[in-house]
């Protein structure tokens, strides 16, 4: 993926304006998942395991095609299946590839107390640095999508990296490469938005899905993984995709007002104690006279 530094400023031997000047150079990346063309083949699940070096996990059968109930610390990409009965009685098999959404305002990063354990790159990728992770699991509380998963073995938390290693080498993520139907797209956020809106319009105008739309939730500042849904008014149908995700209010309360109240209280308390000592000093018991009278008295 070209970096901003590689954006063309001038070219030699060219008449007129620089072609592509001012156009997004894929500086912020985005994955677009068109669930309407997903066939649930799970090639993306396998590609993810293969690229990231994890072996296939034991599957859990739950009367569905789904590999396991939710993503795991060593299984970052999972297609969620939902057999959905429409109002007119027709069945629909809804499939959604679940993985980290790479939020513009990541709740995991907000909640994390460990220095440098979670980084957000300028291209929008949110990545965990396990060597700095202390394994507290606060990221799991901060995430509205149930994505970070704790490994009891490593005592650290793991999740999808949006193949940051591939992307920084100019390659697309492994899942994108494996998709046989082309329901997975990768590019700049602007380009993906354009593509997604175009596809949603097509679904509305041509395919009869009047509620088709794009999932790019504003509650987390937008995401660097977007969906095109047949029914964007009910994202919950797609394996529990939250309708209005945001960083949990208790995490925000803890990280902002409570932190400032607490810091102010501790510092003001310390100053108050010091001031008290200067003003009133210690409680000194006059020992000598008391000792004498006591010794004369008892025992």
């Amino acid at each position, binding site marked *: 993926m070209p970096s901003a530094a590689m954006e063309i400023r001038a070219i030699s031997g060219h008449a007129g304006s620089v072609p592509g000047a001012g156009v997004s150079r894929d500086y912020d990346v985005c994955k677009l998942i068109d669930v309407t063309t997903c066939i649930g083949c799970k090639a993306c699940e396998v590609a993810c395991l293969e690229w990231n070096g994890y072996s296939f996990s034991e599957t859990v059968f739950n009367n569905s095609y789904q590999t396991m109930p*939710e993503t795991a610390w060593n299984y970052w990409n999972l297609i969620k299946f939902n057999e959905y009965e429409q109002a007119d009685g027709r069945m629909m098999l809804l499939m959604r590839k679940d993985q980290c959404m790479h939020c513009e305002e990541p709740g995991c990063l907000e*909640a994390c*107390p*460990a*220095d440098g354990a979670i980084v957000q790159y300028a291209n929008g990728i949110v990545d965990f640095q396990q060597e*700095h*992770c*202390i*394994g*507290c*699991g*606060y990221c*799991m*509380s901060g995430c509205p999508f*149930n994505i970070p*998963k*704790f490994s*009891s073995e490593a*005592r650290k938390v793991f999740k999808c990296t949006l193949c940051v290693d591939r992307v920084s080498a100019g390659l697309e993520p492994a899942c994108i490469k494996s998709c046989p139907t082309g329901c997975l797209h990768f590019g700049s956020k602007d380009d993906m938005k354009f593509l997604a809106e175009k596809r949603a319009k097509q679904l509305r105008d041509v395919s009869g899905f009047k509620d088709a739309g794009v999932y790019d939730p504003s509650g987390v500042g937008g995401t660097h993984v977007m969906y095109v849904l047949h029914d964007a008014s009910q994202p919950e149908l797609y394996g529990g995709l939250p309708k209005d995700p945001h960083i*949990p209010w*208790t*995490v925000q*309360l*803890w990280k902002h007002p*409570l*932190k400032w*109240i*607490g*810091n102010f*209280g*501790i510092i003001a*308390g*310390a100053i108050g*104690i010091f001031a*008290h*000592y200067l003003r*009133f*000093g*210690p*409680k*000194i*018991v*006059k*020992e000598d006279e*008391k*000792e004498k009278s*006591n*010794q004369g008295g*008892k*025992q």
Partner: protein
Amino acid sequence: MSSESYFLPNGRVLRYSYHERMIHWMAGLSYVYLLLTGLSFWSPWLFWIAVVLGGGTISRELHSWVGLIFVLATWLMFRMWSSQMKETPADKAWWNAIGHYIRNEDAQVPTADRFNPGQKLLFWGFFWCGIILLVTGMVLWFPNYIPWQLNFLKLICVILHPIAALVTIALFMIHVYMGTAMERGAFGSVIRGDVSRAWMEHHHRTWYEHILKSSSARK
């Protein structure tokens, strides 16, 4: 402990038994560790504390285990002191005179029993906050065992744990100040166990008269 044993040679009085001092420091030292590691997770500006104490991973792991030691000590304290920490009708007059107490006008403060109402507040504050910290801490200790359907539990604990901790920090700061700088002799009482008769008379007159009476009754 028989009432006789309160009176030591050279006019000294036993304030805290070995058993009491041991449990106090079990709670005290574990609390200081929990405070330091807890503060390192509280603010990025204090994360260096975790680094000094062996790294973030070790601090996170031991914070939970040392928390159990603190809870055990708090429970032992509850068994040992709760009967003496009960609120009495006389406490109200003491609180009404808190201004005099703060200004060191101790002659105008009602006499205190073995523990003055301020100490009772410290005790019950730590006891109830300890329960909150234990329950919320257990949830935060094992985030991977809380299913997503019960995620609200984690979210409640994430906010309650630091709130309870901040209350204990306020109590702790006052306790340390009073036990060291402000009330001379108090720190020695929880290290060596003894205080002077004058100290007893000054700070815990009701209790002192009680043990005097019971010791003379035995004679």
